[in-house]
């Protein structure tokens, strides 16, 4: 079969003519480049430049030919170093691939032309092996099978049918359904396989029908096994014909230089994204006035820089290996109409849609009664319908979910509808283009600037709508602008007018020959691109050095804060409760491509969305399923008859037993660790092994784990009715730094669901004037002044209930793993929480130093790269530290058999700073 695939020669004539290698052109590239017009890329004619003088030595010629390669390699090395210094795309695996890319580039560039494509393929396979390990073999096997089906000697529709059947089987594998649930390599291999084949296979099969010159087997395989695909799942839809046509279609060095320049551009996009994400774009609960509305609307749109940055990086990397692919985006922020935006943003997608869907649909429809206008309208509408469906299809393969949300439907309907109207009116009015430099006219320039500004505002608003969980949430967010006065609106109007004026000015300057860009990104000249890339990388790399940051003071601190890939405080808190998992089912592209979190397997669900719980329409929202054994986050989890994630205990406390009731959330419940690996189980085991039965000690120690993931004081308080029936001697109420956040989020959820609140919470709800008609931001804003009161009231009631049954109430501070990855200067509210707990009557203890001495928190303590819950090692640290804390205070806690009246309070400073 593959012999048939490679029926063409190794270098088909159509490509052979375009191939330009250093050894084939004869003249040193650097010389030709230096003598070429600096403002334009060397043209194809440069390829046939005269040969070197015969007198020049072969060695000198070879050295001269290697000059540009060395220069590009130097830039590439510095660039990849910068990625490392700024911790960019480490989570995706790009940094791990860096040595392979750099070494591979150098070797590839000096190889004879006929060996380059095979070498690139081998390099790509090595990349897959490096990042996936042995499952890469399965990936390759499945990939070869899919390509092979395209070449079966049966008719086209039979092949399509076979591919669909195989696709269904692979889809079951993707979601781990049925027999596939046990295949551990599924979640590793399937997203990558999906990324490689979900669209390219469609294009490949389409183009295979019209292939004029048969491709080599290396071309066919390289088209699918592209090196950057090893780390990037969200991938531009590379066209097969373009992939072949542009391979070494101009000077090799020009392509290499363009590649490294585009990678540099990608890096700048990714850094800008970080600035926006960390410092500019507010979270939904911070949207309270006109300016925060403006920031979130435009900021959300600009966060798309992450995707454009990745696409630049991907296409740039391919450029290093001779694939001179066109640009993926063309200044989409400057689109002046809906069709213009469609053409400028994600150009590869537009081309894919045109080729495979639009033109075939148009050709079928044009002969019908409605003629060309109807055909264009219907074909355009069809393209948007297909785009919407394929958007969900894409997320299915990448994330394992098939999101079909109302905002998704409305976004594509509105956008598609506007493009249809635009297309039909263009067809009727005719397209008016120009090849010459346009003559400046104030009226035209003003019209254009108004159009660009209008499109920017409209698309940003539409984009923010797309990202909103519901239309009501979006409207509620926009309504916050009403909190600002007329002066703010007037000021915003002035800013918009100012920007339009700048737009007119730029057009005037352009008409006078002034250029605001250093070079044309689509065809950058070698020397200028090398200069821009080198200087840019050196500046950024320099700013990344601690010495430079020290000298730069505040700005240095700011740059330093960009050197770590992390979540913002808000997103970290969301992730803790599982909100990230919810985000993954929405359209939050940036969240979905956000580093290692995009590797999360589909079965990695939050507790509330798992089979481990029974949902209820009351304060608890959900409870653990009693007497069940299930898998949660890939670890077996046993729930006893009382609904505790714990072994079985009798309700009646056995004689000679010291019983502790533990009240907490996901960290205490233990997510993704075995039953006997939770930190309470570790502490309990040590108490029984090292203390039980000794003189003056109890016969047995029990820690009953009442903790449930996602719970807050709002659930813990009613849960106390159950806890006290087990007659605990000690109540261990665990506190984390997100205590108030979690409590408020759950209060919002209860209000939005219209769940009956107990009298003390109902009184606060009425006082705060919140109800289910308000947006999340509004409820949050109104509840904020009451947060301390709600917590204090809850704590006080819990303490009272504990004391009623003779249990000593302890508030125990337990650290979260991710706290060491926070933004500089952010204070953890530990002391404040401890103060509240003391006021309520708790005795405060802390095991906040449990993670001291851990350098790489993510590596050593995280459950998974995409989940910062404590892993087994972290639970061990917490369990040991809890044991020590209990023993240290054993006498005063009555744990060693001698009750005490007083317990010394720990120093808040030592607790909170640990």
């Amino acid at each position: 079969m593959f012999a048939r695939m490679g029926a063409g020669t190794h270098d088909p004539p159509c490509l052979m003519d375009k191939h330009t290698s250093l050894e084939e052109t004869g003249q040193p590239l650097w010389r030709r480049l230096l003598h070429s017009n600096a403002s334009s890329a060397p043209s194809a004619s440069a390829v046939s430049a005269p040969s070197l003088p015969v007198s020049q030595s072969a060695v000198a010629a070879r050295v001269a030919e290697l000059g540009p390669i060395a220069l590009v390699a130097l830039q590439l090395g510095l660039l990849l170093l910068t990625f490392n210094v700024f911790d960019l795309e480490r989570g995706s695996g790009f940094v791990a691939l860096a040595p392979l890319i750099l070494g591979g580039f150098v070797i590839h560039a000096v190889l004879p032309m006929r060996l380059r494509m095979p070498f690139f393929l081998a390099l790509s396979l090595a990349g897959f092996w490096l990042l996936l390990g042995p499952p890469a073999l399965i990936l390759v096997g499945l990939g070869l099978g899919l390509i092979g089906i395209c070449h079966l000697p049966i008719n086209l529709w039979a092949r399509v049918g076979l591919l669909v059947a195989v696709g269904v089987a692979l889809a079951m594998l993707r979601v781990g359904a049925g027999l596939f649930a046990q295949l551990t390599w599924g979640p590793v291999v399937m997203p990558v396989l999906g990324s490689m084949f979900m669209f390219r296979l469609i294009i490949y099969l389409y183009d295979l029908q019209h292939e004029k010159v048969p491709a080599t087997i290396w071309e066919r395989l390289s088209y699918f096994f592209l090196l950057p695909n090893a780390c990037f799942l969200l991938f531009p839809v590379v066209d097969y014909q373009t992939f072949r046509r542009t391979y070494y279609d101009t000077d090799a060095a020009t392509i290499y230089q363009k590649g490294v320049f585009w990678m540099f551009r990608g890096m700048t996009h990714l850094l800008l994204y970080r600035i926006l994400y960390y410092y500019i774009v507010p979270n939904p609960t911070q949207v309270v006035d006109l300016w925060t509305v403006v920031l979130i609307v435009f900021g959300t749109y600009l966060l798309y820089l992450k995707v454009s940055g990745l696409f630049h990086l991907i296409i740039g990397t391919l450029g290093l290996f001779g694939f001179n692919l066109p640009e993926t985006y063309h200044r989409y922020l400057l689109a002046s109409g809906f069709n213009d935006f469609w053409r400028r943003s994600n150009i590869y997608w537009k081309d894919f849609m045109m080729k495979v869907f639009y033109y075939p649909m148009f050709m079928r429809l044009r002969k019908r009664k409605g003629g060309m206008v109807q055909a264009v309208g219907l074909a355009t509408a069809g393209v948007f319908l297909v785009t919407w469906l394929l958007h969900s299809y894409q997320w299915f393969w990448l994330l394992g979910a098939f999101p079909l949300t109302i905002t998704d439907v409305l976004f594509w309907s509105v956008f598609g509808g506007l493009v249809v109207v635009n297309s039909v009116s263009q067809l009727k009015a005719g397209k008016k283009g120009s090849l010459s430099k346009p003559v400046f006219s104030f009226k035209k320039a003003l019209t254009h600037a108004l159009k660009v500004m209008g499109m920017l505002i409209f698309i940003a608003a539409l984009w923010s709508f797309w990202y909103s969980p519901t239309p009501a949430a979006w409207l509620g967010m926009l309504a916050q602008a009403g909190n600002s006065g007329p002066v703010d609106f007037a000021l915003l109007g002035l800013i918009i007018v100012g920007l339009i004026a700048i737009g007119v000015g730029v057009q005037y300057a352009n008409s006078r020959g002034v250029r605001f860009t250093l070079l044309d990104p689509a065809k950058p000249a070698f020397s200028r691109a090398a200069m821009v890339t080198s200087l840019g990388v050196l500046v950024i790399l320099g700013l990344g050095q601690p010495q430079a940051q020290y000298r730069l003071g505040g700005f240095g601190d700011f740059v330093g804060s960009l050197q770590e890939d992390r979540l913002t405080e808000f997103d970290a808190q969301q992730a803790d409760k599982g909100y990230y998992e919810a985000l993954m089912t929405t359209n939050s592209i940036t969240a979905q491509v956000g580093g290692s979190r995009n590797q999360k397997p589909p079965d990695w669900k939050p507790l509330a969305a798992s089979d481990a719980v029974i949902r209820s329409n009351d304060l608890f929202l959900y409870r653990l399923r009693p007497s069940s054994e299930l898998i949660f986050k890939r670890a077996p989890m046993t729930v006893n008859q009382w609904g505790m994630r714990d072994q079985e205990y009798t309700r009646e406390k056995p004689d000679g037993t010291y019983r502790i009731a533990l009240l907490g959330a996901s960290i205490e419940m233990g997510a993704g660790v075995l039953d006997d690996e939770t930190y309470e189980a570790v502490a309990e085991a040590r108490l029984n092994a090292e203390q039980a039965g000794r003189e003056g000690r109890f016969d047995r120690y029990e820690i009953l784990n009442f903790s449930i993931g996602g719970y807050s004081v709002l659930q813990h308080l009613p849960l106390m009715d159950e806890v006290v029936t087990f007659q605990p001697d000690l109540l261990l109420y665990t506190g984390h730094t997100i205590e108030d956040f979690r409590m408020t989020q759950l209060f919002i959820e209860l209000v939005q669901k219209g769940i009956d609140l107990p009298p003390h919470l109902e009184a606060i709800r009425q006082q705060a004037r919140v109800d289910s008609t308000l947006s999340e931001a509004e409820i949050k804003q109104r509840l904020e002044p009451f947060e301390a009161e709600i917590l204090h009231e809850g704590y006080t009631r819990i303490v009272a209930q504990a004391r009623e049954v003779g249990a000593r109430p302890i508030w125990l501070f337990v650290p979260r793993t991710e706290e060491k990855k926070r933004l500089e200067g952010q204070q953890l509210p530990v002391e404040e929480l401890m103060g509240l707990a003391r006021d309520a009557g708790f005795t405060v203890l802390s095991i906040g130093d449990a993670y001291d001495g851990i350098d790489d928190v993510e590596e050593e303590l995280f459950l998974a790269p995409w989940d910062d819950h404590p892993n087994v090692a972290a639970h061990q640290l917490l369990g040991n530290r809890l044991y020590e804390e209990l023993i240290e205070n054993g006498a005063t806690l009555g744990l060693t058999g001698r009750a005490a009246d007083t317990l010394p309070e720990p120093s808040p400073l030592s607790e909170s700073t640990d």
Partner: protein
Amino acid sequence: MSTTAVPATDIKASVKEYILTKFLPGEDPNMLEDTTPLITGGVLDSISTVELVSFLEEQYGVEFEAHEMSADYLDTLDQIAATVQSKSA
């Protein structure tokens, strides 16, 4: 109109006139050369491409297929003439 033996120069002249009138009104004819990129250069977008194809089909009695509505076949006047000629051969 039959396409038999229509010289490439005639096809190019006719298409050039069509493009200048329809998509580049007021443009200096000298700016549109035989090798000027039309699709990749942004002169023709998807809508103007389907209009051009309709013109070619009507003018020369040929029939285009969907996959031929691309830069591989229609990017320059040279390519357009070659494509039309290959269809009439």
